């Protein structure tokens, strides 16, 4: 995908994210190229090592007047993309609020607090209240496994564990059952409990949860609240996983 620019130098194909050029290669999504370029677009259901899904819609950007999810939309040459307008931030905030009211999220008491991407994105997008009425769903916790606990109350159906277990761990421990607002994460085991599945704490699926739904046992609050990853820096700045820097700030 290289061509000569006006100076006669080789340059890659680019698109423009908030006016700044982002180089990309054929087959890259908008998100792939952005993360590779060390920039950040808010997201929850995306992980660079996992096949994209496009379900949370947090990574929506505007391309040619239309909203697309940047984790699934192919990058196209010279396209103009915005990710940080007031309009997009408002939409994103509403989507975050939807995720908050749909489940039961208890940030102050959650072990993931400060390391949680949902919480961090809520702070970043200045979400002050959950706005909508809480659904208060009745969901049972699975604490059967010796090394991990699943609190379905905090599950946002991002399917990262489903995909990691299927594609990386090659175990297919998780699936999504039902549909609509009743959609829920289920575990593949004779009892439906995590302890009877092939899940181990070393699985990628055990590490990948962006929220506090899948948590390791036997440790808690090792790093005090206030000193955790997103306590120190808003999400998108200094993301060690992606080695990104948010230069747009």
């Amino acid at each position: 995908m290289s061509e000569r620019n006006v100076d006669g130098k080789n340059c890659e194909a680019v698109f423009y994210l908030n006016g700044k050029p982002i180089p990309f290669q054929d087959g890259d999504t908008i998100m792939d190229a952005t993360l590779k370029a060390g920039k950040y677009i808010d997201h929850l259901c995306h992980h660079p090592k996992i096949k994209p899904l496009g379900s949370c819609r947090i990574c929506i950007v505007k391309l040619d007047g239309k909203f697309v999810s940047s984790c699934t939309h192919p990058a196209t040459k010279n396209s103009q993309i915005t990710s940080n307008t007031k309009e997009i931030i408002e939409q994103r905030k509403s989507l975050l609020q939807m995720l908050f009211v749909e489940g039961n999220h208890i940030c102050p008491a959650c072990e993931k607090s400060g390391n949680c991407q949902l919480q961090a994105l809520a702070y970043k997008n200045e979400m002050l209240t959950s706005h909508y009425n809480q659904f208060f769903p009745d969901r049972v916790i699975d604490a059967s496994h010796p090394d991990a606990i699943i609190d379905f109350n905090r599950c946002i159906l991002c399917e990262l564990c489903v995909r990691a277990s299927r594609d990386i761990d090659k175990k297919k421990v998780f699936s999504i059952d039902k549909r609509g607002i009743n959609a829920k994460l289920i575990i593949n085991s004779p009892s439906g409990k995590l302890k009877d599945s092939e899940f181990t704490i070393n699985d990628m699926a055990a590490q990948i949860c962006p929220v506090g739904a899948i948590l390791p046992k036997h440790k808690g609050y090792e790093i005090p609240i206030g000193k955790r990853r997103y306590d120190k820096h808003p999400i998108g700045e200094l993301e060690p996983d992606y080695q990104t820097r948010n230069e747009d700030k």
Partner: protein
Amino acid sequence: MVMKINQFTDEIILLFNQRPDKLLQMLIKIQRQYSYIPQQAITQLSRKLLLTEANILSVIGFYSFLHKKSRGSYDLRISDNITDQMLGSTAITSMFSNKLSVQLAIPRKDGRVCVDSTSCIGMSDQGPAMLVNGMPVVSLNKKRVESICQLIESNSPLNQWPKSFFHIKNNIQRKDILLTDCSDNGAAISALINQGSQNIHQQIEHSNLRGRGGAGFHTSLKWRSCKDAIAKRRYVVCNADEGEPGTFKDRVLLTTQPDKVIEGMTLCAGIIGNEIDNNGRLENSDQLTGGFIYLRGEYEYLYKSLQRVLQRRRDAGLLGKNILGVKGFDFDIEIHLGAGAYICGEESALIESLEGKRGIPRNRPPFPAIKGYNNQPTVVNNVETFVNATLIAIHGACWFKKIGTAQSRGSKLLSISGDCDRPGVYEFPFGTSIRHILDDCGAQNVQAVQVSGPAGFTIPAQDFDRYIGFEDVPAGGSFMIFNQQRNLLDMVKNFGEFFVNESCGFCTPCRVGCSLLMQMIDRVHQKISTNHELCEIKKLSHLMIQTSHCGLGSSASNSVMDTLKYFPKLYQQQLNHSDDESLFDLQGELLQARQLTGDDNV
């Protein structure tokens, strides 16, 4: 005697050649046999198909006609479309519940019967209607309900029920070029062989035929993208998942004109894959093309008759190997059943379902015409589109273009229901005004018409001079009429519930948004809303339109937005007060705490 579950499951697995992509078809057969999917069957399927049990459970959980618990000997599903409600389905449902002593959706303890509601079953012109073990029963009234309850209590098998219960009327009320045509079977395929694929494709292109499912994509373009995609295998899929509430014209086409539907599919195969030259010989003999009819679960009763038509056509050399003697022109069709999921009418969700999976719409691009079934180029067209293609091949583009408008050529079949004297199927040329249609079907004092189902458009009386056509009021097939006596909020509420039930749950804005929208509509309905809710509805609608993964989420708020626009009084008169503040009922909010603590001072 019910066969042992393991043995039956094994037979079903063998019937479908142990193919994991046939999982949904296997589950439907097992459900039909046992009225649920027993755990033993799940274990067996998991072992033989090399699928996880959770995967199988996730498919069962997605389709509303599949169950993990027994539904009993008689599984009743009462159609819950607004038109059924207008014909008294709510009273019919309570009558069933009372007489049979059952609660909605909870199977009776003796394993005899379950009474449940379901999304529109495509009988809006002869409702209230229901399915009993998959068989439609129409025109339900008090007398019929009483007889049915007696038949159920006496454990009478369905084949001993009065035949009249199952008599489905076609109700064809107006015919035009499509419904009056009486060409011979095979005439379109003969034209293809005589004139060659290229010429027939050109005729389709010149005819300007656009998809009849509602979106109106140019048929020839879709076929061309599929033809030009590089692949050895291609698929032609007929979308007979007629799920848009209020639509039933495809049911009538599949009943009265199945040959023309199948012929249109064969024609498509001969254009996108097999490519016949104008000497009637095959150009690309290494191309393989397969076909599917995706038949909605509600139309399972048509399965056998469609199979017979397919067989008759094979016997007549119109389907199968060497069609009409052209060596290598091979094309055959399988019928794939759905199992109660509106979203499967969306073409990429339909393809997922064809592959035996949950019907979650895919990310696009790539489009199905490039990467569809099994990642191969796939044409998905509506039933009516294929019939039109057949007629264009026979009579030519000029004949087709004689009626309709410049942007919308030909005719449109409408399924007319609701407040009118003569509900049924009407074929009108595109360009016919809503007013003309209403006159024809005998509708008086009409307040509004809902065109193209809950995801479509609410047309108020002042707009009845607008006409059906892709450039004005795009009509999918559903045409529901509401007279002045109707409260349109009942319609909005019914549609809201429909989308809550039918959202696939994949993306945040639709999964959560449909429920939030329903909460807000409910508050308006219960007169506990203020201007605040109305602003919230607009904001939420905007969000769902802009950020949803597919058309379901982006159209779920259409009816509330249209009625807000055209019938603002309807909402204003429901408001508790017109402040922009949300209503807060302190006593109501405290009620639960008081009950729990038993302390009125809380």
